[in-house]
């Protein structure tokens, strides 16, 4: 997963807001969402994102996995991130 090519990212008071440039859909992200979004500037697997969050925040790994998956599904459903080839992930 990585940023969709047709989106624009900005920050207000350190929190990220993202808008799709084709349809104008947008979402504001909280602290953790903003961390994930910045990581997604480079292609990431779900496992990589979960590992990064596990290092930064305390939490059950299953809970982190569920939250990250839901986050990615939300952003993908409104075309703010896209799936890229496995070879593109670091």
């Amino acid at each position: 997963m990585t940023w969709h090519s047709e989106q624009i990212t900005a920050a207000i008071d350190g929190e990220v807001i993202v808008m799709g440039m084709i349809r104008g859909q947008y979402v504001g992200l909280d602290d953790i969402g903003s961390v994930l979004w910045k990581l997604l500037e480079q292609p990431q697997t779900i496992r990589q994102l979960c590992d990064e969050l596990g290092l930064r925040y305390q939490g059950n790994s299953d809970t982190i996995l569920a939250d990250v998956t839901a986050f990615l599904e939300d952003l993908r459903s409104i075309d703010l991130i896209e799936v890229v080839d496995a070879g593109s992930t670091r």
Partner: protein
Amino acid sequence: MSSPPVPPLPDQGKDCLLYGYRLRSVVPLPSLPVMPEGGVPDLSLRRGRVPEQLAGAVWASPFVEIGGDGSVLVRIPGIVAFLIRDGGCLTLDENSNAETSTIETFLFSAVAGAILHQRGVLPLHASCVMVGDVAVAMAGVSGRGKSTLAGALSMCGHDVVTDDVCPVDFRDGKAMVIPGPPRVRLWPDAAGLLGLSHAGLETGRPNHPKRVLAARGADVGPKRLGAVIRLDIDRRLDTPVLYRLTGPTAITPIEELVYRARLGRRLGRRVGLFRDLVRLATIVPIYQLVRPEEGVDPSRLADLVVSALCDNGKEKAGG
């Protein structure tokens, strides 16, 4: 402000000032300040043929259409119609016999919104007054009480900068409000809340219940925007509350902050509006004022608006 090509000029008419632009009009517009002769107009208003519909329209709402060339048709059937092209060439339907007050009402609202979006200027959906040496914009969708609050503040001695359409220009790292006509349009219940006689106020449009409160206006120069206050209603509340908005919540939903945001997006301002609002939120403090649905004295809300500016001033002084 941005300067598209100067539109063709009518042969006659006085120049007046509309949202910071020199407008040369063949139609009398008595509510607007008259400008000295000799300048080059930014906008022109003439009478002419206005089509029933735009050929190849790319977007249409009940009263507004966008043509493939970015022109905008505002048509209220049987009342008035305007065609707006290139951010400044305005045509009033030659068959319209609308009264001057009706022409002004639409020119200052829907038509102005189209002009500003075509020219790439951010129009907040807000009424705006001066508090001290800065402007404060009270923003929100229709029915949230923007004009009522502006009227209440006006009656407390604050100059009205603009009502309903609030153009914001970014200059030298500051957000500047471009003043509009110094009048406030009020529903009958709002006039009653302010202690005004509905019958004693002028009508903005014949057979329309809204009335016009002619207010003392600020001078015509741009005013630094000191705060934006977003208005909302919560039936669960007993008393109004005011708090600072931070992060993305300060500018979302975008549709509640921008005048005719959908029109702007369709005119190619999707990314521009987003960037402008982010810029606004980084320069100007944005607050939320939430009130109960009924039973709030507008003067109480006016006091809260003024307090926001005072608190902001203290923060700056302390920080």
